[in-house]
């Protein structure tokens, strides 16, 4: 098995992954696996997927050389602009793929969990585009802090279901989505929003996000004639990072995933089995999952996709973390020096580059995936910086 190739027959990347689902869900994930394998091998399916990304979602997104910030940091910095994708983040890549799969599976309804609301908005968008029903589960805490996205989902015709159990954030939304899914398997596809959950999800979502890294790699090579020395992306579940890394894993680039300090599943977690996967999770000594704490709703997740746990274990990628304060600084710095307001999630990657700027060699290029735009975070940023809104 090559690094970031196909998972093994048990759905594992090295030691991590697998398929820990209750028996009632087993037929559904097996059917999904088979359907995806067929579809992904079918040029017509890929064409349709890429056509929609191009004509509808705005791909390819630019690779932008951040000249002013490069100069002020003393780092040659390039940004892969997923913030320009339709709905405002990389999440659209995955949902277009999964909506096509849902169609192929004959499903008429999408369900999804969401944290920041970006995946919920993307799923609601794909549902509207394909004429599917849509229900999005979202922790009550997140419903409050991402009100704009809640409204967007509703306007798109989706039903947003606030989840009041547990920590009332993303992990509980996942639980609730799984609870819902098992009761409506026949009509519904569960459109997971990151490289997490039971096999084949981590694999499917990485493949649908691979376009980010593959584009970036071609674009960087075209612009500079070389490969970047560093490739950096934020990690919640890890889909934008996985998609990015997939384009560079066979190069000599150093791959860095950036987690929030309060949700550093790789940095501070231990191995466990939650949400259908064997991976790294923040948990107490007894195995109870702990609540993540991050200013960014989209990274406020105590686990991480299994492939990242694997990349960390084999040393192919390293995972670092930044604080909320560093993230807020990074938002301001990027906004003021480049005219780009990043999502709080994406700002984690930028914050790490800013903090570690001394670490890069002379002549090193750093490619950062800017996974999304910050409009959705205006209120959070305003409150955090005392600006009010």
């Amino acid at each position, binding site marked *: 098995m090559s690094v970031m190739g196909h998972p093994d027959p048990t759905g594992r990347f090295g030691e991590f992954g697998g398929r820990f689902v209750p028996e009632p869900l087993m037929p559904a994930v097996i059917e999904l696996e088979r359907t995806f394998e067929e579809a992904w091998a079918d040029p017509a399916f890929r064409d349709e997927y890429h056509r929609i990304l191009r004509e509808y979602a705005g791909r390819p997104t630019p690779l932008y050389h951040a000249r002013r910030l490069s100069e002020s940091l003393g780092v040659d910095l390039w940004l892969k602009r997923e913030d320009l994708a339709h709905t405002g983040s990389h999440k659209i890549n995955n949902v277009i793929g999964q909506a096509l799969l849902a169609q192929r599976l004959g499903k008429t309804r999408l369900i999804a969990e969401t944290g920041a609301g970006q995946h919920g908005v993307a799923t609601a968008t794909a549902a509207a585009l394909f004429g599917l029903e849509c229900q999005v589960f979202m922790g009550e805490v997140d419903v409050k802090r991402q009100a704009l996205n809640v409204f967007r989902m509703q306007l798109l015709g989706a039903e947003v279901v606030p989840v009041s159990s547990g920590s009332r954030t993303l992990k509980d939304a996942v639980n609730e989505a799984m*609870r819902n899914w098992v009761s409506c398997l026949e009509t519904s596809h569960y459109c997971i929003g990151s490289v997490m959950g039971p096999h084949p999800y981590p694999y499917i979502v990485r493949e649908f996000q691979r376009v980010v890294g593959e584009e970036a790699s071609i674009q960087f090579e075209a612009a500079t004639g070389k490969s970047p020395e560093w490739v950096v992306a934020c990690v919640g579940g890890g889909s934008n990072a996985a998609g990015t890394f997939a384009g560079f894993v066979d190069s000599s680039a150093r791959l860095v995933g950036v987690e929030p300090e309060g949700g550093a599943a790789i940095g501070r977690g231990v191995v*466990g089995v939650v949400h259908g996967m064997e991976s790294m999770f923040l948990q107490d000594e007894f*195995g109870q999952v702990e609540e993540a704490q991050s200013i960014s709703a989209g990274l406020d997740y105590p686990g991480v996709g299994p492939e990242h746990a694997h990349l960390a274990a084999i040393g192919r990628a390293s995972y670092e973390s930044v604080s909320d304060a560093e993230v807020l600084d990074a938002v301001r710095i990027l906004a003021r020096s480049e005219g780009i307001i990043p999502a709080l999630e994406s700002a984690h990657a930028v914050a790490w580059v800013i903090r570690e700027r001394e670490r890069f060699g002379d002549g090193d290029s750093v490619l950062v995936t800017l996974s999304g735009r910050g409009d959705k975070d205006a209120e959070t940023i305003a409150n955090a910086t005392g600006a009010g809104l």
Partner: protein
Amino acid sequence: MTGLETKLRALRDGGRKLVVPYLMAATTPGWTEYLLAAEAGGADAIEVGIPFSDPSMDGVVIQRAGELALGRGANPFGILAELRGISLGIPMLVMTYYNLFYRAGLDRMAGMLAEAGVEGVILPDLPLEEAGPWIEAASPGIATVQLISPITEGERLARVVAASEGFVYGVGLMGITGERLKLAETATGVARRIKAVSDKVVCVGVGVSSPEQAAEVVAAGSDGVVVGSALVRRVLEGARPQVIEEFVGGLRSAVDRG
């Protein structure tokens, strides 16, 4: 054949329909009284829930009971210690999620369960494909019960049933735990389908909440029923052990009437 299976088969083969109540551990200071009450009411085995932070297959009642228990500071080791301290005349099983076992270490957990007198476990998020390491650690002292859903079919059905230890858990409906006003159609079909491929003891649970529903399930061919949320809801409402005993008694007579 595990000890649990031997015991339950003996009962079944003796013509008895099995009543298996589920109760969440540690919801109140005197929670073990509920187990004794269930036995007194006529239970044939008992499932003890160990609370988990992310009970993705449970409905609101069991979720809330778990949160209550965790809020009281419950942990798996403490719960098992308490179980060791009580003496029940019927087999005990533990129902929880796999991460608690994984975190404790599989061998260590198997040892602690055995010490506590637990004879079987039900781990809804540990399907057969992933169960190997655990079964290796647990066998033969502790039976690992497999679940069969209304849509488990064909070769898979046979394989999972064959691997199930203690008994076979027929999931009564496509959904999560919780009371339903009406028994799902699937609850009567699932036992028949399991029976068609094996003579193992079959109990049907999830969505079986009342004596009438329990009677319907056994009438349709199941060897027994698992009833959880209906009991746990009463506990959450502050019921005394007596109420649990009476409710289990009601289930007992309903299935006995057939």
